[in-house]
């Protein structure tokens, strides 16, 4: 027997269930990093030099090639790994040789790293080597960073801007 009272009871039960769902639609709050911390992001995409210099082919080598594929130089596709270092304060935060992307290893190297640090002042130094030189760096930038709570400080590299960019 369906009575108005029973229908009201059914509505109350359904509404209570739906209200429970609505509560968990944005609660409890999730905190990704501890309070009072900020994030330093090291993120860029850059291609290092090719693994080897282009080599001029000898006339014999050129003659061995099919007529439609003959060329004067042989340039290997593969790129070198990119060497990157990041110092935050007096500590090395990141140091890595980043391999090139792509199946043939001819794509740019990429880095996307996040560092959660307590808010405060930091001396930041970032260095990168993208040429065959055995030591030293081709690009470098140092600076003092005031990292606020929940702030996202991004270290990017843009060759068109002349090197590392702090944002």
């Amino acid at each position, binding site marked *: 027997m369906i009575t108005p009272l*029973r229908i009201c009871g059914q509505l109350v*039960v359904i509404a209570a269930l*739906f*209200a429970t*769902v609505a509560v*968990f639609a944005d609660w409890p*709050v*999730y905190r990704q990093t501890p309070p009072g911390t900020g994030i330093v992001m090291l993120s860029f995409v850059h291609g290092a030099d090719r693994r080897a210099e282009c080599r001029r082919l000898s006339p014999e080598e050129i003659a061995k090639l099919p007529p439609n594929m003959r060329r004067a130089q042989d340039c290997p596709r593969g790129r070198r790994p990119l060497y990157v270092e990041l110092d935050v304060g007096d500590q090395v935060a990141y140091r890595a040789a980043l391999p090139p992307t792509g199946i043939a290893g001819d794509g740019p190297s990429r880095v*996307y790293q996040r560092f959660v640090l307590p808010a405060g002042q930091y001396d930041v130094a970032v260095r990168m080597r993208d040429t065959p030189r055995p030591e030293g760096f081709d690009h470098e930038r140092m600076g003092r960073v005031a990292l606020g709570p929940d702030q996202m400080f991004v270290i990017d590299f843009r060759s068109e801007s002349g090197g590392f960019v702090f944002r």
Partner: protein
Amino acid sequence: MGTIRRVLRRGFELIERPFDRLFGPALNPVAQLGALGFFFFWIVAVSGIYLFIFFDTGIERAYQSVEHLTTDHWFHAGVMRSLHRYASDLMVVMLVVHVLRQFAYDQYRGVRWFSWVTGVPLIFLLYASGITGYWLVWDRLAHYVALVSSELLDWLPIFGEPIARNFISTGTLTSRFFTLMVFMHIAVPLFLLFGMWIHILRISRPKVNPPRLLAVLSLLAVVGVALWKPAVSQGHVDLARAPVEVGLDWFYLPLYPLTDSWGKGAVWGFLGAFFVIIGMMPWLPPLRRAKPAEVDLAHCNGCARCAEDCPYEAIRMVPRTDSMAFLTEAQVNASLCVSCGICMGACPSSSPFRRTEELRTGIDLPDHSLKALRERALAAAAALPEAPRVLTLACEHGGAAQQPGVVALPCVAMAPPSLIDFILSRDLADGVAVAGCAESACYHRLGVDWTRQRFAGERDPYLRARVPRERIALIWTSALATRQFERELADFRARIAAPPHMAPRRQAAPIVPASVQNGTSAPAAAAEEVPS
């Protein structure tokens, strides 16, 4: 697997019982999860179309347009936003509980593998629909979702440049991004709807609409919740600030925090393992199937009742292939047949009164034939204790299946109504208890409905009017509710123990094959019933 299933089933039965009492079996929301899922999809679709009128695709304008509709037009667009949000969450709830319930009641193996397997991509599509929706609001939660989603995608060695770089500093994101997201937020739900259609393709009479009263109550409830707790944004995106504290939607984003604690590789591993395992579950282990139903053309008149009643669309009517003067005959698709026997119960030839030399019917189960059923009923009746003698025809998935002396069937709708008539008119028992599954959880979906309708004279084949209804009890209990069955059976025994219903015990007439009597056998219908 079996232990997990039993524990879950116990849990569901504990939950469903109070719902059954308050709502009744027909309205019980726990038994309408699939239909409610469809219902919430339509709410999401209609509210989404309405919201799209107000939405503006642009880095700044996206957030502003959502704020405009939420605050300035809260009384219509704001409510629609909340409906859109909460109905989406409710879809996830319906999906999760639906999956668990199908698993708990073992309704995912055998021929049901198709619905189960086609349901697996729906999980992915539903989550993809919801997550793309969160990006569009472009608030702090959207920033968080964008960052974590793209970081997860970047973990895969597919993209050359990290997508997440677009969301960590200004100047890299353009308004076209929102155009792309709008396209995805429309396209993915369309694929979801297409998948939902495929999901129910093999189901006969799928419940895609909840009962009207339940739909109205659900709509009222979700509108009430939308007014009580409107869905709001969590502040405009500031790409210079990390979205470190957000109110997560725990229905759509429960895995996102795990990327911090587990790592992205582990989350991908978990997702991969989850989808592989859940996709293979119908075969872990596979369901042992009895032999499928077989049509005996000599007893089939092409009435199509079996095809009408089959819950699995395993029977279709095809042009007659023999010389009988009927247009069609039943044809069983063995790969779809679960051997529930409902077709046998629907066949007008399935009459235990028939006196053929070997009792045959138009459509029969080789492992549970009509002849065997009659013999089992006769044997069980002979073993009944003194009055009141109650013979129980029990569904093997219900609460009476394990009781001593019952005649267990794959489904109670396998018992043709004439069997009840036969038992009572031959005075094999003083009463017949037809004990099926719980009303809101019929293992073969339609067995409870068909039995009730046949007994009520609303569906062929009818229970004849001459059968005294007071000597029949329909008892619907789940497999674990054995005490409830015993209680209801005791009540029934007490009812029929009253003198007016106690018919004097008579000697049952012998069943003489008709061919022995007159050398003929009817091709269909209960032509040789013996009046009581």
